[in-house]
Each structure stands twice: as structure tokens, then as C-alpha cells.
């Protein structure tokens, strides 16, 4: 599988990262070499192998659905780069 500039542009759109036009060639080259490296896995036949998604044998625990925090609005807003009293401020979304 070859990686070209258009693919990098598409993926950067999906990842919401704007890519500097000047850097796109070196980025494409680096990512292509990494894909060449990871495609070694194709040597292995894994048809009968089940994918491992968690190393733990037990299923994830569930907890009772109870409110255990709350009233921390100001704390949560504290680190926001742009806030207005009780809200996060973002660029206008609706015309």
C-alpha cells in the first residue's frame, strides 16, 4: 500500500490537524516508510486468530449509576482557554 500526499491530506482532515504545505513531502515520506515497516505483518497468516483487544482476562467492571461528584462547574471551567462565566466560548457555529 503506497501512501501519497492526497492520502495524508485526507487523513489530516479526519484527524483535524492542518498540515503545513511545506512539510507535506517529508511527512509523506516518513509515514510511507513506517507503513512499509508495519506491513511486515502481512507475512503472517492470522486467519484463525482472534484479535486481542484487552490483556485482562476479566470483563470490565461496571459501577452503580450514582452521582459522585457534581457542583464542580467552576473547577472544570478553570483551565478553559476562553470562557464566559459559566460557558466555554467557541467560534460561532450557527449562522
Amino acid at each position, binding site marked *: *500500500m503506497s501512501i501519497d500526499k492526497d*492520502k*495524508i491530506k485526507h*487523513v*489530516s482532515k*479526519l*484527524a*483535524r*490537524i*492542518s*498540515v*503545513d504545505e511545506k*512539510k507535506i513531502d517529508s*511527512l509523506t515520506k*516518513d*509515514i510511507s*516508510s*513506517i*507503513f512499509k*515497516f*508495519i*506491513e*511486515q*505483518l*502481512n507475512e*503472517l497468516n*492470522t486467519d484463525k*486468530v*482472534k*484479535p*486481542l*483487544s*484487552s*490483556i*485482562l482476562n476479566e470483563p*470490565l*467492571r461496571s*459501577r452503580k449509576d450514582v452521582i459522585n461528584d457534581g457542583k464542580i462547574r467552576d*473547577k*472544570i471551567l*478553570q*483551565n*478553559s*482557554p*476562553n470562557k464566559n462565566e459559566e460557558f*466555554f466560548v*467557541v*467560534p*460561532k*457555529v450557527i449562522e
Partner: protein
Amino acid sequence: MTDITKKSLTEIIGLLKKKEIKSEEVTKSFINNIEKGKKLNSFITNCNDQALEKAKNFDKNPKFDNLLPGVPIAVKDLFCTKGIKTTAGSKMLENFIPNYESTITNNLWNEGAFLLGKLNCDEYAMGSSNETSFFGNVINPIAENTVPGGSSGGSASALAAELTPTTIGTDTGGSIRQPASFTGTVGLKPTYGLCSRWGIVAFASSLDQAGPMTRTVEDCALMLEAMSGFDKKDSTSINKKKENYSKNLTKNIKGLKIGIPKEYRVDGMPNEIEQLWENGKKLLKDVGAEIIDISLPNTKYALPTYYIVAPAEASSNLARYDGVKYGFRSLKGDNLIEMYENTRSEGFGDEVKRRILIGTYVLSSGYYDAYYIKAQKVRQLIKNDFDQSFKKVDAILTPSTPSAAFKINEKKDDPISMYLNDIFTVPVNLAGIPAISIPAGTDANNFPLGLQLIGKPLDEQKILNIAFAAEKKINFKQNLNRWWEK
């Protein structure tokens, strides 16, 4: 006492208990070294005044019924610390001040320790040389212009240079063991789920584990005991009784079976590493262990698997950095989407962006099965290899890294050669098992080299014991000329 900073953590605690020294003196001595150690660039945030105040408070009413009484500890800047900036080595979190404390650091403070500072690391723990940090390269105290390894490079550098008596790091693919190996220190990656991940800035959640970095194996056992334990706030935390690793530490390893995997003998591995491994085998035999040849046939597929799984999880974890709720926000862009794109482009460094793009790609529609599911299948094969081997042996001995510490900029422009640093450490993370690196010798430049002991799940005690026996035999002496103080 002038050379308190040269003592091990266990020795310092002993002196505190005997009232031969006060916590304030200990803290002042380390702060003094920190002031003289600025060239190493191992700290991002200093907490000198706060640490001294804690030390004085401890001395007023000293209590010795816990594991780390009156001990100042600097930690990797990936652990959230309440009211203290936590950057993850990134511009994105340059001014982030958590209003909560990570479970691991909280465990340390509950055992009587207090925060000495926050240590530099690769950005979001992505790197093997500490060259990806927004806050600059960390230097290895063994030589100028030399990397300390990564991603816990600041932790390893500060520990080796005696700027902190002990420290903690995180290990997703080798980020504790590789820098420990590069700096002549001890580092342990615990079984996945033994140490809580709550409050640690996430990289790859199915691989991330926090662990101790220390100057001796005895200190390592003590720190692991202090850090570990069930945490209901981490859904993958293992619910089991806490173990007394330090009390149960023994050099008696007679009759233990140690496996030597033939696949770890890689092309181009320096003779010195081969020799180091041979010596390790010999000395373990001398103390009564049995050496057995084993095979881990899928070893060569571990790194390619890792470079699918880790970026995939990272791309998902790092989606949260959108410039809205916390962290950096770009002022460029006319609408919400452009704000996101510019924030993430300006806030993340090149390596982090590269991994997010790889991760996004392998998870994207049409490629998910070919890459991500394929990697999860190979991960199962790699785990099976270890499961099979541990039917025959108690632990596995390998080199920690394929080389000693390298020069700054030497591998920066070649991602694959950088990734190959983790060739011996990555399989352990994929299998979720514990491993420890101990200093075991030096190369021709007198740079430290480490040996790695890999254990069964939750069998930390056994690898600590083997490491303890080996450490005594190896008798490694750190030989630093303290160039950074000149």
C-alpha cells in the same frame, strides 16, 4: 552529612528513622543538586518552596509508620498533580493546572512522600530519546550531547544525576526500561493493571503502565509497593491484595528457571551487548538458577504491531485536545473546524502529529481490518508465545536495549531507527506482563548497558528477587564526572 544525595532511597529512609538526619536537610540537599543540574534540563517545574515547607512540617511531627516518610520525590510530568502544572512535555498543556491528583502520586503522598518537582519527558510520552519534548532535550548525565532515552528521560536523568532520590515514569513500549538502561539505573514496568492509570495523561491505554525508577533493586521493590494497588477509578485496575515486595525481597533464587529467547539475538547487535547477555546468564547460573533456551517466534512482529496499536489508541485518546475545555487554543481560523485544525497543528509537535495521523489512518474506514484488527491478532500471537514459554520457565533474561545511549540528533530524522530502540521492550507491553531493567555493564565508551528480566503476569516479586541477586553479583558502579556542575 554532605553526600546524602548519593545514598539510596532505602538508606535515606533508614537515616530519617534513626533521626540522624532531618527531612529538611534531605530536601535541601536535593534542591541544591537540582540548582546545579540545570544543564541536564530534566525538570519542567520545580516545587522547591513547597517541598521545603512539607519537609519542615514532617520534621515537626515525624511519623514513620508508612513506606516513604519525609521523602521528596520528583515525578514525570505525565502524572496530574493538583495545583501544579502538568504539561506532558507538550505546548498543548503548557499552562494546564489539574485540580485533581493522579492515584499513583496520591499513593506516594499517602505513604509520607511529597513532591519535589515535575520531570521532562517526550511529548505525550511519544519518543525514545526525550528529543520530542516541547521543553527541550534532556541530557544524559553520563556524557554531554547524549540522550537519556525516553520517554521517561527527565526521570532517568534526574535520578542518575542524584537530583531526586527516586522517581516514577510510565512505560508504553519501553519508556521506563530503555532510559533506565541508558542511564545506569533500575526501572520496572509492572503487569498491566497493577498500578492505576487514573490521572496519568493517556497515550495508548491498553499498553500504558506507571512504574518505579530507582538506583537500587531494593528501592524498586519499596516504590512498587507504595505505588501499586487496586483503584476503582481505573476500570482496568486489578482487584487483588497488596503485596509486600520489599519485605519479601530475597537473593535466594536457587532452582529458578531462566529462559533465553533466541529471537532476541538480532542482526547488527553490538558484541558488547552479546557479551553482557552471556555474563548475565553465567552469573544467574552461579547463584543457582537454571538456564533454558526458549523461543518466542513472533518477536520480530512486535514492533510493527506496536506501531499500529499504539498510534491507533493515541489518535483516539488525543482527540480530546480541541482547544475548548483546557489546553492551548490557536487564535487562527474563521470557524470551529478551522480552530480545531489550527489548535492541533500548532499545539502538537511533529512526532505526536505523525502518530495521530498513522493512528487515524489505521482506524479509518476501509483500512481498519487490514491494519488494526490484523495487529490485534498478531498481538494475540505474541502473548501466546509468552504464555507457552512461561509453562517452562519462571522468568526470561534479555538485553534491555540493542545499544547504549546515542548522541542527540543521531536518530532524530529516521523514525524507524528511533523505533528500533524499543525492540526488546515492546513485546512485554503487548503481552501486559512485568519486566525490570537493571544496570549490568558498560560499553567501550563506558556508557551503561542494561539487562531485562521478564516475568509472568503479577509475578513482580520473582523478577525483583532475580534482579536483586543479579545486582549483588554484577556490582555495577555508576561513574559520573558531574560535568554539568562545571
